[in-house]
Every structure is written in structure tokens, then in C-alpha cells.
């Protein structure tokens, strides 16, 4: 399966057609088919038009829409970078969700319990402790694989379950649970550990926060790591041809643990970002399946950091636009999930896209034959 996925979803070099055009058309077709779904459920043409126009307006139509799109995209991209990186090294990290939860929990504890630090120390501390805990949590799966050969897909899925239950349990412990509450909810983080809003000088309602900038920096950092360091070279060769990597003297065990560590750090950062930038506290399900959606983002972005950035922004836009769509047209947000799934189907079957618009991909089709 790994070979199949690698062929479809790993782009070694940034190819504009591969990374941009195919996804754009895939999205277009997915929206078209989504339209058919709406028709089938008895929506009138007028309402479908309202639904799609609010999808567009809600994601790109105003400053607030853009702010929402970027806010939704940020944690997705953090987690997807980790998945993409592991994927490059030949590992299928399904555990971003769990790593995110652990990272978020760690950030929340640092956020409410330390009250003597200035913001320029407290915030970085909360973020990096979140990253560290996500990293250590993911390393368990890496270590299991390296030392015993346990398949990472199985172990990361199990670690997800453990993380979800652990979260529920910890939220009820007196140290973490908010005073005077019976439901599982954590204390709120202190102001000094919150990511500052970026656009509050225009309108305090705009939620876009500094995590977005941290994310952009991280994209560049991961790009640099992957393509301009020996570590990235080792990751990529281990993923592309493990036999050749072994022949080159690259130690698979070390590579596996290291790549899971970094992947977990990125997912942990996604969790910490949500806590310190958006939610302010942890509650059951605060991770909102972002760790799973991020798998789709990583695949859609062809496991290339720049591709992941664009794919994440697209998914962010669908989420932000979906909310307005639900309000304005009364269409269920589940449609968004359907559209996301359809996009992935079209990406997985690029020939479908190429055949549908042959004039765009003229040369490629010839090459394929």
C-alpha cells in the first residue's frame, strides 16, 4: 500500500502542474459533484446557488472571511507538515490527532499554571512544551517500529485512542479542571501565554492570530530541513528507496525515531496553537479531528511543504465557507466533508482529472502512454 500511496502522493520536486493544477481541477469537479448531491437531496437550484456563493463569500469574500480561513488552516498545516515529513521517510503517521491532544494538554497546563513569566517567555514556553510532548508521544510509535518492527499505522491508531481517553480523564482531575465546574473542562490559560491577535487594531472580532505567522515560518523551516540538510536527505532516501538508503549507510532505526519525533512536534504544535490561539482552554474533542483532516491535507499537498501550505489553505477555506453556507442556505456542513473526500478521490485518480480537461494536460497524457 505504501508504494501505491508514495506513487500517488509524494512529489519529489515542486511541479506546478502536479501541485497546483490537479488540485484546482479536483476541487472544481468535487464542487460540481457536490452540487449533484444537493440536487439529489431535494435542494432547489436557487438554494444551491446561495450555498455555493456563501461558501465562496464565507471563505474569501471579506476580511473576516479571510481571517477565518487562515485561522482554520493554521493547525491543519502544522499537523499536515508532520504527516508529510513522516510520509517522505516512508512512514504513515495516522497519529497526528493523538499527538495534537497530548501537545495541547501540555500547552494548557503550562498556560494556566505558570503565572510569573512575561509574555515573551511564557508563550514560547507553552508552544515548545506542547511541541515536545507531541514529539515524545509520537516517538513511542517510532521507537516501537524501530525496535520491534510494530507497524506504525497500528500503533499510532492505538495511541490516538489512548490520548483521547487520557484527555477525558485528565480534564476531570482537580489540578486541571476549572474550579466550580462539573463538566470536563480545563482552566483557562493566562493572557501571557496567548498568541496575540494580528488584526485586532482593525476589528477585535478578527480571530487571526500570530500562530499563522509561526506556521508560515514552520513551512519554510520544514522545506529547508527536507531539501537542504543531511537529515532531510536521509529522510527522503529512506522513504524513496530503503534498500539504497541501507546501502548508503543510513541507519533506518535512527531515522524512524527522529522523523516521528519531528512529526509529533509539529502535531503537538498544532494542538498548542489551538489552545493558545483560539480556544484558550481544553475540552473533550478540542482537537476536532484536525489531526485526521491533516492526513488528507498532507496527501493533497503531495507531501511537499509548499503543497501542504496550499492544500491547508484550501481546506481552511472550505471549513470557513462551510459555516456561512450552513447559516445562509441551511445546508448541512456534512457537505463540506463530502467535498473534501471527493477532492481526495480526484487527486488519487489524477487520470480522471487529466482526461476531463485534456487540453490543459496535453503533454502529460502523451507521456503517460
Amino acid at each position, binding site marked *: 500500500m505504501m508504494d501505491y500511496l508514495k506513487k500517488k502522493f509524494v512529489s*519529489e520536486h515542486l511541479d506546478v502542474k502536479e501541485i497546483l493544477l490537479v488540485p484546482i481541477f479536483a476541487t472544481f469537479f468535487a464542487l460540481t459533484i457536490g452540487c449533484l448531491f444537493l440536487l439529489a437531496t431535494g435542494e432547489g437550484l436557487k438554494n444551491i446557488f446561495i450555498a455555493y456563493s456563501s461558501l465562496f463569500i464565507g471563505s474569501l469574500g471579506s476580511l473576516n472571511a479571510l481571517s477565518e480561513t487562515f485561522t482554520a488552516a493554521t493547525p491543519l498545516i502544522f499537523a499536515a507538515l508532520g504527516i508529510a515529513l513522516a510520509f517522505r521517510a516512508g512512514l504513515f503517521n495516522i497519529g497526528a490527532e493523538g499527538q495534537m491532544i497530548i501537545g495541547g494538554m501540555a500547552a494548557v497546563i503550562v498556560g494556566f499554571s505558570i503565572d510569573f513569566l512575561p509574555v515573551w517567555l511564557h508563550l514560547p514556553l507553552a508552544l515548545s512544551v506542547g511541541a515536545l510532548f507531541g514529539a515524545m508521544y509520537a516517538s513511542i510509535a517510532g521507537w516501537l517500529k524501530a525496535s520491534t518492527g510494530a507497524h506504525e499505522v497500528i500503533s499510532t491508531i492505538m495511541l490516538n485512542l489512548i490520548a483521547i481517553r487520557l484527555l477525558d480523564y485528565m480534564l476531570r482531575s482537580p489540578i486541571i479542571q476549572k474550579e466550580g465546574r462539573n463538566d470536563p473542562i480545563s482552566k483557562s490559560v493566562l493572557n501571557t501565554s496567548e498568541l496575540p491577535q494580528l488584526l485586532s487594531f482593525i476589528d477585535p472580532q478578527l480571530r487571526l492570530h500570530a500562530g499563522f505567522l509561526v506556521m508560515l515560518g514552520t513551512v519554510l523551516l520544514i522545506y529547508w530541513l527536507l*531539501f537542504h540538510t*543531511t*537529515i532531510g536527505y536521509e529522510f527522503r532516501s529512506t522513504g*524513496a528507496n530503503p*534498500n539504497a538508503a*541501507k546501502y548508503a*549507510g543510513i541507519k533506518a532505526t535512527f531515522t524512524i525515531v527522529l522523523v516521528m519525533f519531528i512529526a509529533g512536534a509539529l502535531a503537538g504544535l498544532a494542538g498548542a496553537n489551538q489552545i493558545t490561539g483560539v480556544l484558550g482552554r481544553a475540552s473533550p474533542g478540542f482537537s476536532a479531528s484536525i489531526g485526521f483532516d491533516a492526513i488528507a491535507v498532507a496527501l493533497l499537498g503531495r507531501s511537499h511543504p509548499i503543497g501542504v501550505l496550499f492544500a491547508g489553505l484550501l481546506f481552511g477555506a472550505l471549513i470557513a465557507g462551510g459555516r456561512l453556507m450552513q447559516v445562509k442556505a441551511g445546508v448541512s456542513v456534512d457537505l463540506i466533508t463530502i467535498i473534501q473526500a471527493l477532492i481526495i478521490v480526484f487527486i488519487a485518480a489524477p487520470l480522471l482529472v487529466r482526461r476531463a480537461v485534456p487540453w490543459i494536460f496535453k503533454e502529460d497524457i502523451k*507521456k503517460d502512454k
Partner: protein
Amino acid sequence: MVSIELKNISKSFGPVTANKDINIFAKGGEILGLLGENGAGKTTLMNVLSGLYRPDSGTISINNEEKTFDSPRDAISAGIGMVHQHFMLVPIFSVTENVILGNEETGFANFLKLSESERKVKEISEKYSLFVDPKEKIERLPVGSQQRVEIIKVLFRSAEVLIFDEPTAVLTPQEVAELFNIMNSLKATGKAIIFITHKLHEVLEVCDRISILRAGEIVGEADPKVASNKELANMMVGRPVNLSLERRSSKPGKILLDVKNLSVLSEKLDLAVSDISFDVKEGEIVGVAGVQGNGQTELVEALTGLRSSLSGKISYFGQMVPNMNPRKIHQIGVRHIPEDRQKSGIIGNFSVGENLILNNYYAAPYSKHLKMDWDVVSIESQKIIKNFDIRTPSNDTLAQNLSGGNQQKLVVGREMSSHVDFLIASQPTRGIDVGSIEYIHEQLIKSRNAGNGILLVSTELEEILALSDRIIVLFRGRIIKEFESNPAPEQIGLAMAGHSI
């Protein structure tokens, strides 16, 4: 008697012309040799003939009757039979079961008429002296007999035209001789045979006529009675080729590699290499001959630190290497050309430049404090590309887009461009064109003349004979025979088949 004629066959794939205006002709009772390098278009032509591809233009006629093949089934029913290079047999089935697969005769309630089919298989095998027990399981048969089953399969479907695609690649010299006898007896019964190969001496030995294919076109015909090796090679490559290598006599110096009582287990935990001892000295090439699968792979993996050995000692340059691993072995100056370039020699979707630093990416000048210096990589790899004549559009081209010969030159260039003290070359010229073989052989000899030691592992007997100063023959993991100087090919052939006289 049957006759087959291909007229003006052309076939292209996008911008690549694989076959251009090809005319060949074969009739019953003769063997046509189709000689060409890898990538010359032999396989495309045969796929056209066996119904896998439809030609863009041109016609195929059998017995002067024009035919079009829409599928391999059409070709088979027209009497064309293909003996594939890679056998298409089910190992756990018997000979008969394999032969009838896809053409099963059934009786009441779809029960197989196995004994009747067995009788037919026996008949065929006796008629053409293809001796093999119809009831034996394929997995128990040696490679040569498996090939006979492939031939029976084709005859069972009453083929009149038999195409042999590189049939000798997996055989010992003795098995090759038997195959040629079989081909001659098929010819005597009036079958037409097309024999595809890139080995010159084989076409000279067995064919009645020879057509030479180069870059998709028939560039000439030759008469095996008068043609020479050299003429054929020149036609095949398109320029004069130097087949005989100039070698200074070797002056072996001190011992570089010393192997004592080495035993190595295979993947399946069989004893793949058992208790072997040999050495390689400065300025000599030691050839390891043997039919594929007699422990060569495991031996090389043990010597390069890719596989741990069961017992015995390996010392390089007079010293044992503690905790052998590939990187350490590389660092002490041992270079390794792996036997399968696709599997471990190159990374297909890495660029040529990225592939050229596979062994030393972690060290200066290619990287410093974990940071890769792609400018230096680019400069250095352009040097290697130039020095080793790797034909590539640029060093950013993906390695998978190079031809087999150029991929191999990439591996050879990488291993031989940095300082070499000892070289382990495993199948250094497998499946590549004559021009590249010539070039790589020159490099190996040059390195030897410069005083390096080389362990050459090859299943190509000719290569072993042309390059080695000493030869050891591996059979079932043991050294069955050692030759101090160049012996007659027959002697090595016998040793390869397990005779230790």
C-alpha cells in the same frame, strides 16, 4: 512449411520511435537471429509480433496471408509462440498443469483430463527431445528444465513460429549448449525460429541468418558463416568497438582483502555461503564465477557490511573491521557497485546529482554542519558526469529517466570517482549496452593497473574470463574450484554446474 514476414513495421510511443520501417522474414527450417543492444527496439518488435502492441503501420503475414492481431490470443492461434526471458510458470504446479494452464481440456463436470494431457506433454517432449517428467513440480526443476517447459507450453499450443527472447541469460554454458541442440531439432522439424539476443557468439553459433537492429531500425544483415564478432559488434553499436582489452600482466602486491572460513546465512536462514576462504591482492582482479543464486549475493553483502556473517573472518588492508557496517566499509576506502542498480544502487526519483552523493552526502564538501551545499554537489556531479560519460540532459534529471547503461555508469562513476583502495563490483554490466560495457570494463582495468584490488562478481562467464587474473567458482555457497590463470571456458562451465574434477 511456415513462413512469416514483417513488412515496414513502425511503432512509436509519443515522440519516441521504437521501431521504424522494419522488414524481417523467417521461414520454416531456419533460425533467424535478431541482434541488438538493450533499447534497440527488439522487445517492442516482439510485442508487436505476439499481439501485445498494434503497429502504427506495416503488416504481418503468415504463409503470405496478412494478419492483424488484436490480442496475444490472436497471435497464438496464428501459430506464433513466445518463449519469455522471465519464465511464466507456477512453481507449485506440475509440468503438465503449467503447460495446459489456459488451455485446459475438461470432461464430465469440468474435471481436468489430466492423464490425457500428460500423455500429450510426453509426446511433445519426446518428439523434440525436450526431456522432462510431466508429473514433476516446477519448483523442483533446474532453470534449464524450466525453460524446456516453457518451450513445451508453446508447442502444446501448436506454434509454428517460435520466438526466443534472450533465452540464455539465466543458463549455465552446458544448459546453453543443450538449448541450442533443442533449437536445432525444432528447426529440423520445420519450425521457424526467431532468436533475440545481444550476445554475439551465440548468434554466430546457432543462427542461419542474422538481422541487426539499432535505434529501432534494421541496420543490416549478416551471414554467420562469414561474419566476425567484431563486424557484428560494430554494426550493433554503430561505431568501431574494441572488444579485446589491453591488460598489462598483473603484479600482485600485498593482500587487500582476506577472507577466512566465512559462512553467511541467507534471508531464509539457509547456509548461503559456507566456509569459504580467499584473498585479493593489490593490482589484481579476482573473478567470482557461478550461476546466479549460488551465494554471490550473500557473499558480497557480508563483505560490504550489509549482512552479518555467521562465522569466519573478513579483513581489509590487514585489519579486521569491528562492527562492520556499510558506512564504515566505505570510509576505509572500499567501494561497492551493487548487483542490482534499481534495487539499491540508485534512487529512481532522486536527481542524478542527488544520487552521485549517496555514499558521502554527510561529509565535506557536500555538507557542513548538517547543511547540504547543493552548489558544490552540482559542480562535483558535473565533473563525474563528464568523466564517466553519463548521458543525461543535466544533473537535475531524475535518475529513473536515464537508460540502464547510463544508470549503471552513474553508479560506477560514483563509486570510482572518489579515492578507491578496493572495489567490489557485483554484476557491473548486467543488462546494459555494449558501448557502456566496453567503457566500464576499461575503467575496471584502469583501476587495477593503478594498483587497486578488485573483486568482480559476475554470472557472465565472458566478463569473468576477459577481466580476471584469478577466478574462483562458487557452487551452492562453496568454492568448488579455483583457477590461477585463464582456463578454457568449458572447464569453468563444468565447475559452475557443480563438477569439481
